[in-house]
């Protein structure tokens, strides 16, 4: 019995390492293809529209509500210490450094990531990728690269919009509803937020953008060409992206503190 368990464990470790290796090779291929893909920027712009513009509404709505919740919770907490005037700086720092990049990445994985994975999976299942191969058109260059770059470009932009709307939401609750002084709200924010804080958020959102887009295109491109295979690729995209984002967030925060 223990021998069977050890064998199973060894097999699952081998499979995990194999998948990680395959991810690394695929990522290296995408990095190599990036300069060439940027020459056909029209294709990338199309994908920025698909991954970014079409995720705008969900990102803005979520940003607004997250900001409003931060406004409520922050006000309640700060009021206990008599420092409700700091609400602006607390919400802005929370959104810029953490919530903006992380929540946007999770939303991105759920909306754009699944769309990318299922689109590529269906293209494989319906022989569209094989047809390109036979037409001497490299599907990684023509289909995968624009989608990957579209995601990488969209993510930081969406995170920035999320944080901006979030701050507006917090202001709406804190200033308009709870009566925090508007001047204090904005001036405390300006005083507390430094350039490094903004850059931390930008760096995180770029890293999350690369991670989520890589997972989505990898899973879609390598999906089993059946209905079940495409479904599984879509699920794996959400699960792997979400866990990766949270893991990377911890690592980046630990490094940048």
């Amino acid at each position, binding site marked *: 019995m223990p021998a069977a368990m050890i064998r199973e464990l060894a097999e699952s470790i081998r499979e995990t390492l194999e998948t990680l290796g395959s991810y690394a090779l695929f990522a290296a291929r995408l990095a190599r293809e990036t300069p060439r893909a940027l020459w056909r920027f029209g294709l990338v712009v199309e994908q920025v529209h698909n991954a970014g513009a079409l995720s705008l509404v969900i990102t803005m709505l979520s940003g607004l509500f997250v900001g409003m919740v931060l406004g409520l919770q922050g006000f309640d907490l700060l009021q206990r210490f008599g420092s409700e005037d700091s609400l602006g700086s607390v919400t802005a720092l929370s959104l810029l450094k953490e919530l903006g990049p992380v929540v946007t990445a999770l939303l991105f994985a759920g909306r754009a990531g699944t769309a990318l994975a299922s689109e590529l999976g269906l293209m494989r299942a*319906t*022989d*569209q990728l094989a047809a390109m191969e036979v*037409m001497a058109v490299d599907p990684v260059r023509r289909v995968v690269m624009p989608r990957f770059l579209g995601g990488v470009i969209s993510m930081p932009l969406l995170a920035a919009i999320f944080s901006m709307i979030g701050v507006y939401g917090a202001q709406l609750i804190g200033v308009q509803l709870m009566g925090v002084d508007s001047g204090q709200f904005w001036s405390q924010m300006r005083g507390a937020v430094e350039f490094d804080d903004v850059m931390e958020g930008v760096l995180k959102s770029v890293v999350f953008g690369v991670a989520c887009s890589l997972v989505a295109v990898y899973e879609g491109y390598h999906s089993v060409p059946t209905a079940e295979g495409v479904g599984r690729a879509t699920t794996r995209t959400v699960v792997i992206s979400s866990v990766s984002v949270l893991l990377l967030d911890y690592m980046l925060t630990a490094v940048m503190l």
Partner: protein
Amino acid sequence: MNSEVRRETGVIVRVRDLHYAAGRRVIFSGIDLDFPRGAVTAVMGPSGSGKTTLLRLITGQLRASRGLIEVEGKDVSELSRSGIYRMRRRMGMLFQNSALLTDLDVYENIAFPIREHTKMPERLVRHVVLTKLQAVGLRGAARLMPAELSGGMARRVALARAIVMDPALLIYDEPFVGLDPISMGVVLRLIRRLNDTLSLTSIVVSHDVREIAAVADCCHLLSGGQIIASGPPAAVSQSSQEDVRQFMHGLPDGPVPFHYPAPEYADQIRQVR
């Protein structure tokens, strides 16, 4: 010497001692095939006999375990990735499910290979696309999306896309599957007409015996990893060989058994689980 030269010019695809296995399952165990230039050659065989695999080996999508596949005198297994892509530019392929790009309309689907491989001015692209659409009778459907096409129309659009780069070799993978009799007749006529008017070589993989007999100059019959018959369709269908007869006349039982291998029926019925 002379026969060697004749063979070089007369055969576009040459297969020698081809072995291929998918995992443990042996698909081909040493087959030899010639596809003469300018002819319509059919590859037939029961489902699972490796017809589509053979096409994938010829187009370089799969690598043979052993043996030689030569396309226009070049050994496919020795070509680099870019070499395979160069070879494929001389080929067109019609997929079983048409494989049209679903986010592009009919016009853009046909223009796709031109736009990817050339810097042709738009006016010329339009001219070429409309010419090919006219050849398959779908000039009026240029702005329809793939989802708006019937199965037969989609197959014809895919055919127009396959010939848009003026290939030397056109490969059809099960071109008649799922077509109504009218669409089937249209596709049949197109295969013959395009082959003759564009001086192509066509390889048609199918198990539709009657349709193939009407269009092919010669056919090869695949079964059990071997070529069991070759020659003009009429001659092959009159073969007295048992396995050839079973396939050509659609007999339900014979060398290819009706039953999938299983334990004794009575024993299995008697078992509790």
